[in-house]
């Protein structure tokens, strides 16, 4: 693979790989770094890269890189970033679809109050206390809705997983 081919490989896949990294790391700078690091190592052995498998190879590499980054974090850092405590090196082929389904379920099937609390805590990364203050309710109320939302999601999506 010469420099021009490598450049188009980079440009065609950057956005996709960034999205993958961001879904795992939820941090703009860290995600750009992840993609750059992966391309840097790909550049080193660009001679061995086959165009037909390049995309899958890059995606798996970004996944692995992110898993390593997460594994390095301490327990508290994981909780703060809402990273999974255990991460698997296997990249699920249907990961994109699964995440889209989860999001669709949150938008369409959760009761509006529960959805709002979930969004404030997990998307906007507010603490339970901040969320409670903003909604003028108690922290226990926030906690109740979070647990309720997560149980609904768990029942829906881990059951689905077992069927597959």
């Amino acid at each position, binding site marked *: 693979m010469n420099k021009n081919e490598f450049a188009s490989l*980079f440009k065609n896949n950057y956005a996709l790989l960034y999205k993958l990294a961001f879904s795992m790391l939820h941090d703009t700078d860290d995600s750009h770094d992840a993609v750059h690091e992966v391309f840097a190592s790909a550049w080193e052995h660009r001679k061995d890269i086959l165009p037909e498998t390049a995309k899958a190879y890059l995606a798996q590499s970004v996944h692995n890189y992110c898993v390593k980054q997460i594994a390095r974090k301490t327990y508290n850092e994981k909780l703060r970033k809402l990273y999974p405590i255990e991460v698997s090196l296997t990249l699920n082929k249907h990961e994109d679809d699964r*995440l889209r389904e989860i999001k669709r379920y949150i938008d369409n099937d959760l009761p509006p109050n529960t959805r709002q609390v979930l969004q404030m805590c997990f998307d906007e990364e507010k603490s339970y206390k901040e969320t409670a203050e903003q909604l003028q309710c108690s922290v226990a109320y926030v906690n109740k809705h979070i*647990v309720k939302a997560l149980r609904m*999601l768990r029942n829906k999506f881990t059951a689905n997983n077992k069927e597959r």
Partner: protein
Amino acid sequence: MINPQDMKDLLQEPDGKELYQMAAETKKAFAHEQETEIDVEHEWNKFAARHTTPWYVRYRAIAACAALFVGVTIAAIVHITATPTKPTQQSEDGKPAPTEQTQQVSTSEQEMFVFDNATLKTVLMNLAVHYNAEVEFRNSKSRNIRLHVQIDKGLSLQEAVELLNHFDKVNLKLTDNNTIIAE
């Protein structure tokens, strides 16, 4: 920022581990939805500058850093003659630069720039006047690199820049709007 204590409380639930794992996936699903405008061209340029430069260019940068780190400015006593018809002048190797600034820039010869122990700044300023170009120093230390060089005025600016790039410590780029960038 998510409060870790909230998540510790969540983990206290009987099915806490599963709930936390689901929470992590929910976070992923939210992040996955987020649309970000990415300037791919910009990312490529950043990448290309850092990684795709040939090894000898990078080596040159390392050599420059090493030289600066040691703090010894040794004039690059290499005469590069652009016109093959003129014989290359040899000079003693490894002669340290004199401590006082002696920049002898002789432009008396009509068709040649002759720089004898001149700083890169002087060299580039003279080129800038001759070629009507701009000069930008990205690294202030590179201004003081001393050179012995002869440049044929008949060369294009691009050729002159390439010629100077043969020096280990010199790393120049010429942009489209006629700016010489010294790194």
